[in-house]
């Protein structure tokens, strides 16, 4: 059919860039190299902004941050061999957190594939298990179709990363194998006979779900990252308010339902707050929407929510029944299914037809009253409490500030102590738990949302993994702000060694004054501030917010002995949640 079109003769390299433009790509995070060189030449003349990263891992996490913040697929482009292997971690990260992302990798010329050529690796083989799908393109003429398919697969159904491996000869204009006719590929050109995600939920199952909800005495809405992927936050709010059922938002769903809402119980799971954990545990109906019963949420599985019936809604049929058997399992897009449930609830009589849940409401608010999140303020002269720093950050920034976090204690403090009232303002690595995620993810988010304020909340271990991307941020004028919680330790590992390894600390101390984060940040073109006393915290944040011509790093020197509570120890039931030591005596009355 391409003969009837306004075809344009060009090289595969030009075609690749033109196809990316055709897909609406505005930014590419990338790093050139030998095999991808012919694609970098037409980039000069393209409308697409290319952001030159300092390490390919940075390109991948930036593409993820961009996708989290904008809802549009993030795009990364790297060369063959080490370029490709360096981006494997972000691909795995995007796979576990269902992040729409397209990654273009260069490859050695087709005749050289499989010969151990310079900078050759089996990229599609290596990334098979960490992508939703990948392609090796061997003919230039296939480029428009494959690029369209890649974006289609990455953004529909359960979103995820798609990799397109492009051998050099099919994009090199000096090679006749790169000659091709470019055309604007559409859905009609796709050749994907095995791919058609089911969006609509089954009506009968939706009605059954509505009846279960109507009759439940102790229901909880358990919402996951799928709510955000499906743009379902409004539909969720309508449901929660109509049926007056409390909501827990998982680590991937923070912001999908406002923390300030009276029905919001906050985060469940290993470091969830007591009320969220216990409400799920005591519930008679868990309404799971776009969540996957991750082990960090359920704790020991056979002790999880023992009396709860389960409604499980997910776009991915492989999630239904994977971990916990459901009573009603609905495959479909979260937004469409929730809208269907809302409709069915109204047909069943809406709020008036509900079971009386006043006893459940007062039980839940009793827990909220007795077990709020808490920590002890530092004594004069002692190091900063990390929770205090997050509280000051929260209070010193507008509610729609985007927060991107690394992985560890600081991630949990940020999720616990920030107040998330808007969807798409919380970006973190939930499934893979990738240290070093925050700085590149924050840069990607800021590139996609230049008018939003973006704070990276980072730890010192994480910072040392990907700090070089602050050079990218400086040079490319992407002024993110970094709150570096420096406790000189791998804090979460230290906490586990304290609690579960008899305080035998093995390889968790990172040194106190090396590196000098202020000098390091300044050398990368950032403004830098070190904060050691509580009264300096708010002014430093204010000062950081006034600097918008370059990135800012604020190093907060925090208390290394602080632990994240509450905590459900790994392998324990959620009924064995360990609360803050100051609340422990209250638990005796509960069990």
């Amino acid at each position, binding site marked *: 059919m391409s003969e009837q079109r306004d075809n344009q003769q060009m090289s595969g390299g030009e075609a690749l860039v033109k196809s990316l433009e055709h897909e609406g790509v505005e930014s590419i995070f990338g790093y050139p190299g030998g095999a991808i060189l012919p694609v970098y030449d037409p980039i000069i003349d393209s409308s697409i902004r290319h952001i030159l990263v300092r390490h390919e891992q940075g390109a991948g996490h930036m593409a993820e941050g961009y996708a989290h913040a904008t809802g549009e697929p993030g795009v990364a482009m790297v060369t063959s061999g080490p370029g490709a292997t360096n981006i494997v971690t972000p691909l795995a990260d995007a796979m576990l957190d269902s992040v729409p992302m397209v990654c273009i990798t260069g490859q050695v010329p087709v005749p050289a594939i499989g010969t151990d050529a310079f900078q050759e690796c089996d990229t599609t083989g290596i990334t*098979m298990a960490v992508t939703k799908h990948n392609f090796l393109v061997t003919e230039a003429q296939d480029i428009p179709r494959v690029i369209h398919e890649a974006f289609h697969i990455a953004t529909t159904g359960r979103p995820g990363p798609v990799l397109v491996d492009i051998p050099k000869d099919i994009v090199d204009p000096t090679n006749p194998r790169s000659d091709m006719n470019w055309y604007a590929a559409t859905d009609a050109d796709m050749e994907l*006979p*095995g791919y058609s995600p089911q969006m609509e939920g089954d009506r009968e199952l939706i009605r059954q779900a509505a009846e279960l909800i109507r009759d439940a005495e102790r229901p909880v809405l358990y919402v996951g990252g799928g709510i955000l992927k499906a743009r379902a936050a409004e539909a969720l709010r309508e449901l929660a308010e109509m049926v007056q059922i409390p909501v827990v938002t998982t680590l991937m769903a923070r912001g999908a339902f406002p923390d300030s809402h009276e029905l919001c119980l906050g985060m469940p799971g290993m470091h969830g707050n007591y009320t969220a954990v216990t409400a799920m545990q005591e519930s008679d109906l868990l309404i799971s929407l776009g969540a996957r019963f991750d082990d960090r949420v359920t704790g020991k599985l056979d002790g999880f929510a023992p009396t709860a019936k389960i409604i499980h809604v997910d776009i991915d049929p*492989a999630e239904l029944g994977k971990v916990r058997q459901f009573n009603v399992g609905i495959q479909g897009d979260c937004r469409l299914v929730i809208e269907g449930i809302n409709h069915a609830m109204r047909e069943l009589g809406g709020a008036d037809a509900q079971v009386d849940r006043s006893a459940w409401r007062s039980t839940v608010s009793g827990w909220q009253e007795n077990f709020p999140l808490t920590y002890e303020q530092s004594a004069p002269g002692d190091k900063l409490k990390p929770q205090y720093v997050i509280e000051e950050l929260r209070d010193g920034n507008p509610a729609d500030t985007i927060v991107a976090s690394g992985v560890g204690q600081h991630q949990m403090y940020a999720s616990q102590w920030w107040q998330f009232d808007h969807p798409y303002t919380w970006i973190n690595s939930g499934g893979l738990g990738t240290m070093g995620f925050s700085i590149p993810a924050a840069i990607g988010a800021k590139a996609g949302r230049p008018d939003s304020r973006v704070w990276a909340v980072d730890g010192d271990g994480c910072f040392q993994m990907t700090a070089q991307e602050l050079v990218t941020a400086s040079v490319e004028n992407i002024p993110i702000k970094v709150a570096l919680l420096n406790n000189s330790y791998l804090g979460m590992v230290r906490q586990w060694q304290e609690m579960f390894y008899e305080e035998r600390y093995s390889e968790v101390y990172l040194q106190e004054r090396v590196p000098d984060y202020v000098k390091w940040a300044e050398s990368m073109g950032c403004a830098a501030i070190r904060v050691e006393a509580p009264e300096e915290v708010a002014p430093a944040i204010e000062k950081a917010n006034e600097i918008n011509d370059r990135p800012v790093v604020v190093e907060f020197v925090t208390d290394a002995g602080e632990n994240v509570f509450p905590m459900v120890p790994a392998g324990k039931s959620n009924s064995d949640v360990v609360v803050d030591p100051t609340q422990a005596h209250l638990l005796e009355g509960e069990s």
Partner: protein
Amino acid sequence: MAEKFHTIVTTVENKPGVLARVAGLFSRRGFNIESLAVAPTDDERFSRITFTVDVETAPLEQVVKQLNKLINVVDITELDPDEAVSRELMLITVSADSAHRKELMELVDDWRAYVLNENSEQIMLSFSARPDRLAEFEEKLRPFGIAEIQRTGRVALKSLAD
């Protein structure tokens, strides 16, 4: 016939790498594929993969769901052994000196095997049957001396309705 194995039949796109994707979902869980047969269907865009695995039912269900998620997998079914017809082909080269040749040929006739190739010392046979019958025939031939053997892996189709 007591079936230890599950038989999975998938229709996949006839493209490079598809078999590796399918196999990868088993190998990542440490599951062994017991037998495997792949060939194009009547529509050359698609291939049919028939494989048997020795896996508990619950993890298998999860693998089947994951297989279904593969972009190149068009269709997947687990065949109930009671509602399927399965066959496997075996090529086998057996010693056949003059002393035992007559006895061997009687066995070949009884079992409806075919002679594909022969010389004064050996005979190569083709035998196609239900997979469990292949093992039985192999045991019958063993006393003669088996030089080489190759089985194709089973193929299966759903039984016709009454």
